[in-house]
């Protein structure tokens, strides 16, 4: 399809070929992916408020549009027309660069996410490492926001949240090592392809403790409750984004939600079989659900994890900072290292359908 598209443009504009064609195609694919993502992100804010509202016996937003369905757009317009305030002694370039540095990596990781069989922007051979590398760049948004604001609460918030993010990146890295050991590939497409064959072949069974560690790590990485010490309203006002208003704040907000969607997606890809149907290999059921597209299964699984974010946020009180650090270094890190050895043993003994 793409080739015929390129050829037809090539006939119209003779110099459109080679590298330029590659760039234009990647741009079109990127826009086609980012636009649904932004809509998804907007309605996630709505879903979050509704879900938490119902859990707390409230109604949630219900004024703008039927059942409050136009609330996200109202929020967007409010954000766009708000005044952007710069602290008088802040470094204005770095102050504006910080939200950009938070937002760009959150979008850039989506380049390698496989949404179905052969349905991706880039099939990178090192896509799992790419995800780790680009994800770790997102820390700079918080670091710079804290430093450039020239204000004490952002600085404290940035310091403690960067320490937290680096620590949990280590744990998530070890979790990814166990996944890579089973899949024997760092390509996300291969990792998902190896999980074909029904719900029992997915990696959540041999890596069950790792899945839990990964999900808690994902909560920390995306600054979600109960680990949202970046904001920590009760302790440091609003953390790194005390001084931000209007669209720069909205960029931080969007980056957080993009990261949330991405972490949910990564959990599905690594532990829950990605685009594979759970009924594969089961007689009758497999045939009945044959018509369901890959993308549907992926989105259903991802939506469950997105719901999990809201559920956890509504259920647990905020952790104390040193307790989160202790959880990381003294419990999760030894656990992941032990599990690496367990996985190595299981691979040598060829246990179950996974190895």
């Amino acid at each position: 399809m793409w080739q015929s598209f390129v050829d037809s443009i090539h006939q119209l504009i003779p110099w459109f070929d080679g590298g330029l064609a590659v760039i234009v195609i990647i741009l079109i694919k990127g826009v086609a992916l980012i636009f649904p993502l932004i809509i998804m992100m907007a309605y996630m804010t709505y879903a979050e408020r509704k879900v938490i509202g119902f859990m707390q016996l409230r109604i949630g937003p219900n004024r703008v549009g039927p059942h409050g369905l136009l609330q996200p757009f109202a929020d967007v317009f409010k954000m766009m027309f708000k005044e952007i305030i710069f602290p008088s002694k802040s470094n204005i370039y770095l102050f504006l660069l910080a939200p950009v540095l938070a937002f760009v990596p959150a979008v850039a990781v989506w380049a390698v996410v496989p949404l179905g069989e052969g349905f991706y922007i880039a099939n990178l051979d090192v896509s799992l490492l790419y995800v780790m590398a680009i994800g770790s760049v997102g820390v700079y948004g918080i670091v710079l926001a804290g430093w450039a604001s020239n204000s004490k609460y952002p600085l404290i918030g940035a310091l403690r949240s960067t320490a937290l993010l680096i620590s949990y990146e280590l744990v998530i890295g070890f979790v990814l090592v166990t996944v890579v050991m089973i899949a024997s590939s760092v390509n996300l497409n291969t990792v998902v392809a190896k999980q074909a064959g029904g719900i029992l072949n997915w990696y959540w069974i041999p890596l069950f403790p790792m899945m839990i560690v990964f999900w808690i790590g994902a909560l920390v990485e995306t600054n979600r409750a109960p680990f949202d010490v970046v904001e920590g309203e009760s302790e440091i006002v609003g953390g790194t984004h005390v001084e931000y208003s209007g669209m720069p704040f909205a960029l931080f907000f969007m980056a957080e939600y993009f990261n949330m969607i991405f972490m949910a997606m990564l959990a599905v890809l690594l532990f829950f079989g990605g685009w594979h149907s759970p009924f594969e290999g089961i007689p009758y059921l497999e045939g009945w659900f044959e018509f369901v597209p890959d993308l549907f299964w992926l989105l259903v699984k991802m939506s469950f994890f997105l719901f999990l974010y809201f559920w956890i946020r509504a259920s647990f009180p905020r952790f104390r900072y040193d307790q989160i650090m202790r959880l990381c270094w003294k419990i999760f890190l030894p656990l992941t290292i032990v599990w690496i050895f367990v996985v190595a043993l299981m691979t040598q003994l060829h246990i179950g359908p996974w190895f």
Partner: protein
Amino acid sequence: MEFTSVLFYIFSFFFVTSAVMMITARNTAKAALLLILTFFSAASLWLLLEAEFLAITLILIYVGAVMVLFMFVIKMLDTDKSTLRAQFTRYLPLGIFVSIVVIAQMVLVLNAGQFDLEVIGVPERHDASYSNITAIAEQLYTVYVYPFELAAILLLIAIIAAITLVHRNQLRSKKQNISEQVNVQAKDRMRFASIKPKSSKESK
């Protein structure tokens, strides 16, 4: 001009400019950010050389971890620029000496004689199925396994040394005993006092 050559010139332009600007920048935070840009440009150049594993690792380790710690230090430092400038001339001879030695070493090691196309030959281009990681792993875990393990042990010793240095003096430490906090019972903290309520007649 080929498309990859255009990319090469764009990346190397950013590489050289950001490296020069990093040295000349007055603001330490800006210098650190420009160094990050330099790393990114270097990674992009390595990608053009089909070294995708090294490129990603450069970003993962240097940009994702090392430079974050740099930013940490920069944030904590109270940099007084006048003292920095006062000592600039004092350390100038030493600085010139060090840079001459470094340049001489690089010229001796990296000169065209060692890495000339005639000496090592034109590297062959691999197709898309070629895996960089497998090639590196095969070398690292078979031929160079002992040096690799030795380097790992050296790093482990360095980690232990760093931790013991920090944990030597714990005079002003506000360390919490977590197990004590977790095992605390309600009766340790709270006492139910039975106070007889006065009847309304008595209080009158």
